[in-house]
């Protein structure tokens, strides 16, 4: 079993086996394909954070991947061929990530690689993907794809990037929560990116960042920083991360007491964490960005409902077998959607094998609108073939009675920005 939420299917288990002829695999696992088409499987290398600091994400990315592949295969596969996921653990390590891509290309002979989440692994692996001429579909949210620092073989068509996410929050914050914002962020690149992207975006909305409070990354107690929050603050924008996040929230609550400014944060801080955990009571009434709403809404889309069932999570985003086991719901949809983009791209390019990899990339680059559907349960998307980055809706949810209720859906346009690269101008 590869994850905690769904039993690895017979097919997916088998798919991971090495040294067994693909036809044998298909004959035993997918008789339907064999009988109908004598088709060899399309192999997709899944660069999984099975170990290392990304393992909590890796577990759920795996669950989502298995569910997406099952759906694709149940619907007839890709171009009539079954899809086989080949998993390798990258240890959430960039050097290992590059090694894994080499194994995919040279040992497993996969058609494409997919799934990487942590940006340092993406950045460490992408150059090797380019050298190997292996299409590399990442699910990391990093701005590094659209910023132009990678290459033509690296694409991010299933999840929006953080620049877009941060930018699209500003209109709602300025219009509904207040124009004077104090930002509290960890004092390193991640926090600095939030600071820079959001400061610019809120100013464009007529707002102002009245204080920037940078917290040293090693800090585990925060009370002494809170007096620096100006009295005029309408909104506290926090992006604290790390094991001390609950402490941060608790101390913030104790500092403000019953009268507090509005609070806005990114769910990344609390991804895979039960929102009703002790110490998080203070979050009641505060707002969060969510990539995909963790808690099913009153008027939930049929796509989200079906997606939850397929992946094996309940209406609160937790495992169906353990309501305490909260998923990485705001991000893992990216695996589902990316696999569907790969399928659409391969079908559009009439993909036959590795010789058609360039055609596949061109087919994906040619994509634009992706309607809200079972292929894209998070919402409609717009793919930018030049920057290899997809854009989509963002969700702002308010904690109401321990439930994240969507208050606002930021439009695709809210997250758009000027192209910073044209990968299509690069040769293969």
């Amino acid at each position, binding site marked *: 079993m590869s994850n905690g939420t769904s039993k690895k299917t017979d097919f997916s288990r088998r798919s991971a086996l090495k040294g067994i002829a693909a036809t044998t695999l298909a004959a035993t696992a997918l008789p339907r394909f064999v009988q109908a088409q004598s088709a060899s499987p399309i192999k997709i290398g899944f660069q999984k954070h099975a170990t290392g600091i990304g393992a909590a994400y890796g577990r759920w990315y795996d669950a989502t991947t298995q569910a997406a592949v099952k759906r694709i295969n149940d619907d007839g596969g890709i171009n009539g061929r079954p899809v086989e996921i080949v998993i390798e653990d990258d240890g959430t390590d960039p050097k290992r990530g590059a090694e894994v891509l080499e194994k995919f290309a040279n040992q497993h002979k996969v058609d494409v690689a997919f799934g990487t989440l942590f940006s340092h692994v993406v950045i460490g692996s992408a150059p090797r993907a380019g050298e190997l001429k292996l299409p590399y579909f990442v699910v990391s949210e990093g701005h590094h794809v659209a910023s132009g620092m990678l290459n033509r073989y690296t694409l991010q068509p299933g999840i929006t990037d953080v620049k877009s996410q941060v930018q699209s929050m500003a209109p709602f914050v300025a219009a509904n929560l207040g124009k004077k914002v104090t930002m509290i962020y960890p004092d390193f690149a991640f926090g600095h990116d939030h600071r820079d992207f959001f400061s610019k975006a809120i100013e464009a909305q007529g707002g102002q960042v009245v204080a920037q409070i940078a917290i040293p990354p090693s800090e585990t107690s925060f009370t002494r920083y809170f007096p620096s929050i100006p009295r005029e603050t309408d909104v506290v924008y926090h992006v604290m991360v*790390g094991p001390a*996040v609950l402490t941060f929230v608790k101390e913030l609550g104790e500092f403000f007491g019953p009268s507090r400014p509005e609070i806005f944060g990114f769910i990344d801080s609390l991804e895979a964490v039960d929102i009703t955990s002790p110490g998080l009571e203070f979050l009641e009434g505060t707002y969060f960005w969510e990539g995909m709403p963790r808690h099913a809404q009153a008027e939930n889309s049929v796509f989200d409902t079906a997606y939850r069932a397929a992946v094996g999570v309940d209406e609160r985003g937790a495992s169906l077998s353990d309501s305490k086991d909260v998923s990485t719901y705001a991000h893992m949809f990216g695996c589902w959607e990316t696999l569907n983009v790969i399928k659409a791209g391969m079908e559009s390019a009439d993909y036959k094998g590795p010789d058609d990899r360039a055609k596949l990339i061109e087919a994906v680059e040619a994509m634009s609108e992706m309607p809200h559907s079972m292929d894209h349960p998070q919402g409609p998307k717009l793919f930018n073939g030049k920057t290899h980055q997809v854009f989509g809706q963002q969700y702002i949810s308010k904690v109401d009675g321990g439930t994240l209720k969507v208050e606002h859906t930021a439009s695709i346009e809210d997250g758009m920005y000027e192209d910073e690269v044209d990968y299509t101008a690069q040769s293969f």
Partner: protein
Amino acid sequence: MRCELKCLSWLALTFTVLAPSLASAHPAEQALILLLPTELYTLGGTIAVVASIFLISFTSHDSLQRIYRGYIFATWPAAQKAPLITSILATFAFFLLIIVGINGPNDPQSNLLPQVIWTGWWVGLFVIQGLFADLWRWLNPWSGLAAVLLADRPAVLRYPNCLGAWPALGLFVVFQMFLLADIAPSDPDRLATIALLYWLFTFAGMVLFGPVIWTRNVECFSVLFALIGSLRPVQTSKAMRLGLPGWNSLSKAPLPTAQSMICLTVLVSGSFDGLHETFWWLGQIGINPLAFPGRSAVVWPSIIGLIAANIAVTLVFGACIWAGISLARRFGTLGRVSLVQAFNTYAIAILPIALGYHFAHYFVSFLVQIQYLASTLGDPLARGWNLFGLGNLRVTTGFLNSTTTVKPILLINVGVVVCSHIISIAMAHWLSGRFSAARRDLILIQFFLSILMVCYTIFGLWLLSTPRGV
């Protein structure tokens, strides 16, 4: 940015998986621990250890002698042939695992080899060996085969006695380096290759130098498990005897120096494994604890840190013993005691702490990983089987998301660490009787060692609650 972002989404991050990473806790668990009054736990645990030092110091040595012995409670002798048969079966199982490692799933969470090696053997067997039963005697993948093939066969070469068990120490340190610093110690291919090479190396050594000699001096896990196994309350030879934990270890003192060093290395390596994940250590090596760059970025700091920690603690341990001897000679009636003799006498008393730290370090991850192991056992060849109904087992980490379960888990770890220190203190006091019968001497000779024990208790309890970045 969310390289950034991702690297950081800490609360959702860590919770590593296999032993090399086993120690890392689930992020929510760490966050919940930080909300608990851990300073009080540390204070309480330290007071308990200090109190035990006083209590034991004023316990008469005769009483301790009476307490620390094994009482026969069953007349069953240790089985002789059955362990050889199971050992041969274990050899077959080992090679099956190697085949699964090479030909099975690439995902270490789905491959039986890393699951069995790291979760079943390194974590599980280690603890069982020290607490409950001599499993290694039954599951040693060489002993049965060696008994059949090499029993009446003279050794080809003569083992240089001057080497003693130093090769075992060297191999164990290399193993610890692999565990802590290798970038993919759970990779099934890699692990299968290394395990197979080690098996071949060991068996070749047995053929060349004789299985007994090789097992006592070079095969580091046999040496280790023999030492750890001596801690078990129940010991079986001609009969089954029951005593306080460690009663059988005392008869081994003084150990050969190489074995003494192994005792210390087990403790220090386990401690450093915990330390090297902390915010504090990451700060020392210039790593942002919220954006751990991966094991490949810290290979050398981990190796150097491991070696430095071993050297440092060995020197401090030796210095405390030397200072204690000096104190007892100056202010007591202690006669001449060599430092090496005292060092080798007290070293065995370190083992309970090593076992306690091993347990506490891996407990949380074991609770998760054992689920993966069970589910993989339900489908060992990745054929979609559902053996024993385990194939449908759904792994969960939900119990790490609630204070209701996180708090008792932490308290169990605190209890284990504190108890292990108390057992060590009692053993050290018993062993001091080898040097003098005078109570004053016993107290003085252990004075600095006791301070070291208290400091190590505080360190161990701090390790359980301090934030980790790996």
